[in-house]
């Protein structure tokens, strides 16, 4: 049956479409291929999601080889949720990219852009789908290499520097993960995640295992850009083409968060080593620092994209706080916030892409009085900003609410205070954007405003409406998140 093969088909489609984009050598054709294949994958993933909600997890054996000998793709409520988020965002960003990259990428390179975009997308889906630790590394490198190139495609020369920096740091991170995999493999002789977690239990306190766990965690944290390993992120988000910033901000670091969840709770979780290494305490303190430091640095930025990049660092802090509270509420908060923040940040970066397209500016001081010229785009930025702060009725509120609740239940009231403080700081940095586009008086600096096409307006508003929708109707996101966290911490 073909429907049994769907877990691999979702990746193979993109793998085939990517070289097709290069063969056609035409930006418009490549765009059509990329969009169609991504939409097909969205259909497949929705079908799989429906199946998994109805019938429980799917385990797909690559080439018919039984795990733990063969490679297994295991899809449960957690990874299908992440994959759905990735593909949903990608299938909205692709139509949006049609008009916007005209100004950002040279005509004769557009088909290459789509080809590489599909590779990055398939790498991210692969990381989430696979149940094999070495496969994670391979997919991680596929998506990372594609991401370096995508960042380097930016119009300004700083984008090359940002891509180079990310290449060095990202490769160190991925190599750390590889070393850790080597340590765990040498102790257990298996790479399959569920097999690994059973075999680790009796030997979890040995030194190579602890070293392996620590090294992998550091590697994942570099990919996740948790403070203080975030140094690659601001430059990459600021100088990449806006389509790429939106995609990266929405999904790339979220896959890192997924990897952390999977690693801590599915692989080493059952044996709960939290006594022998203070893993969760370390994560919690770094995440709390990330919330505050990211938000404070964001306040002092003059470029709207750089400001949002630092806001992302702060929001990654929230994710990790949620992940490192090992209760159902805490994990639910973290997992819900993965999607909700992804949608919000994606929407905001896409809006900024529209602004950059229309007026050619992203410096705050040059955007004075934008609200009068572009009322709808400014409103989109306003709604996204409210969600970043975590105003009730927007998506950003749900995750923070659960995280604060979990922190209080777990007796971590300083963390709850830090989360609230982070929201206050968010009011300041979002306020800074709104002040300059809505309230500042003075001469309007930018010149002609170019009209946006429907290719740009509809995707942006789809995501903005999703931001509000997931803030009010939480059944879908919360339902899957609660189920996922139940499977991870097993009803503690």
């Amino acid at each position, binding site marked *: 049956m073909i429907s049994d093969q769907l877990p691999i088909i979702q990746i193979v489609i993109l793998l085939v479409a990517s070289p097709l984009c290069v063969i056609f050598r035409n930006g418009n054709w490549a765009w059509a291929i990329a969009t169609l294949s991504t939409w097909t994958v969205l259909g497949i993933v929705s079908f799989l999601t429906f199946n998994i909600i109805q019938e429980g997890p799917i385990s797909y054996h690559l080439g018919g080889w039984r795990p733990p000998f063969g490679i297994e793709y295991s899809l449960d409520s957690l990874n299908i949720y992440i994959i759905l988020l990735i593909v949903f965002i990608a299938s909205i960003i692709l139509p949006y990219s049609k008009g916007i990259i005209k100004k950002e990428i040279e005509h004769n390179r557009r088909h290459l852009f789509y080809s590489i975009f599909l590779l990055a997308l398939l790498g991210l889906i692969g990381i989430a789908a696979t149940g094999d630790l*070495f496969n994670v*590394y*391979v997919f991680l*490198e596929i998506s990372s*290499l594609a991401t*370096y*190139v995508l960042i*380097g495609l930016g119009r*300004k*020369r*700083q984008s*090359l*520097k940002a*891509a*180079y920096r990310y*290449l*060095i740091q990202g*490769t*160190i991170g991925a*190599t750390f993960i*590889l*070393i850790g995999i*080597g340590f765990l*493999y*040498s102790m257990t*002789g298996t790479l399959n995640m569920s097999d690994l977690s059973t075999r680790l239990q009796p030997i979890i306190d040995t030194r190579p295992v602890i070293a392996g766990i620590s090294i992998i965690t550091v590697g994942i944290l570099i990919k996740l850009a948790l403070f203080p390993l975030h140094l690659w992120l601001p430059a990459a988000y600021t100088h990449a083409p806006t389509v790429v910033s939106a995609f990266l901000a929405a999904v790339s670091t979220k896959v890192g968060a997924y990897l952390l969840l999977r690693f801590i709770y599915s692989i080493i979780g059952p044996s709960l080593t939290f006594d022998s290494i203070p893993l969760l305490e370390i994560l919690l303190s770094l995440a709390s620092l990330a919330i505050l430091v990211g938000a404070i640095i964001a306040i002092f930025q003059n470029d709207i994209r750089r400001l949002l990049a630092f806001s992302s660092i702060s929001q990654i802090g929230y994710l990790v706080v949620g992940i490192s509270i090992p209760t159902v509420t805490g994990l639910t908060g973290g997992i819900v916030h993965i999607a909700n923040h992804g949608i919000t940040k994606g929407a905001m970066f896409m809006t900024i892409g529209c602004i950059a397209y229309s007026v050619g500016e992203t410096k705050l001081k040059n955007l004075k009085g934008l609200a009068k010229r572009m009322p709808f785009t400014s409103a989109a930025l306003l709604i996204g900003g409210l969600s970043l702060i975590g105003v009730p009725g927007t998506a950003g509120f749900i995750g923070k609410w659960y995280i604060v609740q979990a922190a209080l239940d777990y007796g971590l009231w300083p963390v709850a205070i830090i989360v609230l403080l982070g929201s206050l700081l968010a009011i300041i940095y979002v306020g800074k954007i709104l002040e300059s586009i809505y309230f500042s008086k003075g001469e309007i600096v930018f010149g002609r405003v170019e009209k946006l096409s429907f290719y740009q307006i509809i995707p942006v508003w789809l995501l903005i409406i999703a931001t509000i929708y997931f803030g009010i109707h939480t059944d879908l996101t919360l339902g899957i998140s609660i189920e996922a966290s139940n499977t991870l911490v097993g009803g503690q």
Partner: protein
Amino acid sequence: MDILEQLNYWAAISLAMVGLFTIMSRGHLIKKLIGLSLFQTSVFLLFITIGKLSGGTAPIISKDFLYYSNPLPHVLILTAIVVSIATLAVGLALSVAIKRTYGTGEDDELEDLDRNEGEP
């Protein structure tokens, strides 16, 4: 004797440290990439050492041999070598592009050039 028995591990660790130190201490883009390459190579050595069993033969089913070396780490490393070559290629391509647009390959000078334009 202890060190000699674990010579490969020590070699892997030294290579990794040399590589990481080169990445951190050198300012030139190409030199950083050389460091990165060394660092990755050290991991290959680590994996290959894991797969070796002293006295083990190739994994052939035969009555004459009892022990054999695990071939899986070697296969994994083949993939990792391909990945590292791809990384190096992208890194070198980026260095060439940076040298072309900035006119220099030194990290500090790149910083200065951008700071003079007021864009960090």
